[in-house]
């Protein structure tokens, strides 16, 4: 059994958490989201990926995007490669799906700006 120390990244508050990696008990959190984060960070660390994809026919040549939910951390760079292959055409609305089920994660990549 080991206690893993970490800083919660769920909000700007940045609580210092202690997570027991066997019992998955979380201490130091000040909200339920912190508990969930601490547990996940030990079992299946995930991150929201924010990036851009190419866009044609808009005022600029890049469209900002994000994953609609966190995806497994080890997939971040692979996801970037998938984004590199996409070119969307304007108009695009906020929340519009750019890649459905990104890398089989069940999470969509969505536009974060109307362009």
């Amino acid at each position, binding site marked *: 059994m080991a206690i893993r120390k*970490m*800083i*919660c*990244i*769920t*909000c*700007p508050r*940045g609580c210092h958490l202690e997570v027991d990696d066997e019992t998955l008990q979380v201490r130091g959190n000040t909200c339920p989201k912190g508990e969930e984060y601490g547990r996940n960070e030990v079992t299946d660390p995930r*991150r*929201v*990926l*924010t*990036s*851009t994809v*190419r866009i044609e026919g808009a*005022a*600029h*040549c*890049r469209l*900002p*995007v*994000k994953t609609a939910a966190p995806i497994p*951390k080890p997939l*971040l*760079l692979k996801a*970037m490669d998938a984004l590199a292959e996409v070119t969307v055409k304007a108009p695009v609305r*906020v929340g519009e799906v750019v890649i459905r089920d990104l890398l089989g994660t069940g999470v969509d990549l969505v536009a*974060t*700006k*109307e362009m």
Partner: protein
Amino acid sequence: MTEYHDLIVIGGGPAGLAAACAAWEKGVKDILIIERDKELGGILNQCIHNGFGLTYFKEELTGPEYAGRFIKMLFDTGVKVRTDTMVLSITENKEVHAVNNFDGYMVLRAKAIVLTMGCRERTRGAIGIPGDRPAGVLTAGAAQRYMNIEGYMVGKRVVILGSGDIGLIMARRMTLEGAKVLACVELMPYSNGLNRNIVQCLNDFDIPLYLAHTITDIVGKHGRVEKVVVSAVDENRRPVPGTEMEFDCDTVLLSVGLIPENELSRNAGIEIDRRTSGPVVFENMETSIPGVFAAGNVVHVHDLVDFVTGESQRAGRAAADYIAGSSAAGGADLELANGEHVNYTVPQKIRLAGVDKAAGVFFRVNKVMAAGTVRVMSGGVQIAAFKRQHMAPGEMEQIQLPRALLEKAQGTVTISVEEANA
């Protein structure tokens, strides 16, 4: 030709959008926003990462999403917008001189003005980094615009000076696009960035953070950065000889602070606080010129856009009151002074007539403290005290001073912080 408006808002970033919307809701129907960029939203457009809106919208948004919500709100009002338009000067009698390439040179007059010009980044010249002067030394924000809006890579091997949030965010952003970020170097013994950004932008990608270090030489004899030398610094922030580390890199990103952009305010004769580099403001965000208000990063640099929104709504509503002739006027009843460990306060002045239930006061401390007590004193008497866990210069503090307590104060109100078990 002179054009007339009730309210002119200078700058269409988050502060300007919130101020205009709030003034509209309070009944001002002739509002013009002047924005120098081609689109509204300001710097949020290039802040494509998430972390915005947790306080205001109770959900986590990216910069463009946060801006987008306010732009949408604005489009539901009748607020007029001129983008790609530069304000050249404003005058004490609220004349705004502006120019663009479709209306030409304009003289606009307003009953009230809200200044929301935001801030700019400190550059190499402001901090005097020694060494050659090659290409490849740029501010983190400039790099962010190149990458996120224009789609260009600004380098392959990167050292970041300063651990402010923009620097940290750019460390991750450049790594994801295939650059190698070799180090993040911070002069102070602590980071000014949010802990969550150190975790998810540096630690996630094994980027080392060197606290109490600085860049002591930039080498680039052939046009582009080739190498930087990083040294540890002592408690007086002077480099310690013998601690030099070399990094072969082509790019240095600077995240070494932001400065409110107040050239227009200064030239208009508005009183500027040397500590914030922003206008001295009353509780309703009015500057030293009656009817000219200011809000957001032009007043003081915020950590979170949510607070910019709140402050700007206050300014917008106050401008509406001013136009309606129903706002507090005259000099200050109370002046806020900075006591021990307090770097600045906003507002700096309070008119009791302008305080509804309570006056919100933002301030920053000048050192990292595990815990402390914020004391509010007037005439040698404590009128309020607030306990706080963990305070740091990088994190803006906020207290609410109830009107009932302020009425007991006289003249100067000093805000200080007493460190616990110091």
